[in-house]
């Protein structure tokens, strides 16, 4: 890629924002896994694999798995945010492989929240355009 000037940056930012909007508010379900050291230590990679496997089994090829940093909910690692269109974004905690599979089956397929693994977003986003 060429070095950016100001215009280039503005263009790139617009593209990035569009992509971001698409990802966060688009038509596809999305699974965002906290992949900080603590998340990984608590088993985030195993959860990731379980998600991927279960999505495949259910033929949900359009559902994206994304990674993010630590949400700060260390007591509930691994934490996962699940965004399904027309449903509130939900943060699940203590997501082991089994819970991951349940999330796919019940939440993504069945549109049912999984009662005992829901945690609260630690703070509202005062800065971004996440909504």
């Amino acid at each position, binding site marked *: 890629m060429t070095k950016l000037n100001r215009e280039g940056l503005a263009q790139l930012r617009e593209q990035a924002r569009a992509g971001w909007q698409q990802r966060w508010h688009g038509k596809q379900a999305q699974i965002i896994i906290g992949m900080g*050291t*603590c998340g*990984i*230590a*608590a088993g985030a990679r195993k959860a990731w694999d379980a998600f991927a496997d279960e999505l495949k089994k259910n033929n949900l090829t359009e559902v994206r798995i994304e990674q993010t940093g630590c949400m700060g909910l*260390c*007591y*509930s*690692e691994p934490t996962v945010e699940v965004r399904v269109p027309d449903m509130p974004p939900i943060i699940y905690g203590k997501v082991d492989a089994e819970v991951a599979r349940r999330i796919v089956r019940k939440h993504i397929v069945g549109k049912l929240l999984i009662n005992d693994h829901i945690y609260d977003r630690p703070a509202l986003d005062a800065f971004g355009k996440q909504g």
Partner: protein
Amino acid sequence: MQAETKTELSPGLLEFIRQWKDKPGNLIMVLHRVQQEYRYVPRDVAFQVAALLEVPLAKIYGVITFYHLFKLKQPGRHVIAVCMGTACYLKGGEDLIRELETLIGAGVNTVSPDGEFSVEVVRCLGCCGLAPVLTIDGEVFGNLTKAQLPDVLAKYQGKQLAAATA
């Protein structure tokens, strides 16, 4: 001038040293690279690094012995690092160390007699939510109890240890 046989440095290490040679403050980065290769800093490698970087050997040893991550002795085949951050301490990190001593015969900063494990203490792995925590070769085990230790170790040592502690 050393009596021991001279270790031949790998091309990768030599290239790394060449790249860093003229950068100020290179020594710690080079030592990290050396340890990546050998898991410790062998004596004759330290001599060679001194010559290649044109740094007094004494300075290299001063640095190696100052920083806990640098080692002058070969560690065990698996390195167990027990977190002794405050959260882990309060939640029983010390018990894990005591249990390890009985299980593998290696206390802090020693290698087990069979050369399989060495035990170290680390100051906070940043997994306080999982306290108490230890890592084996970088893999993190959290919310550990003494009772779980033999199983965890067995993963690394295989049947031999499992039999010994059964």
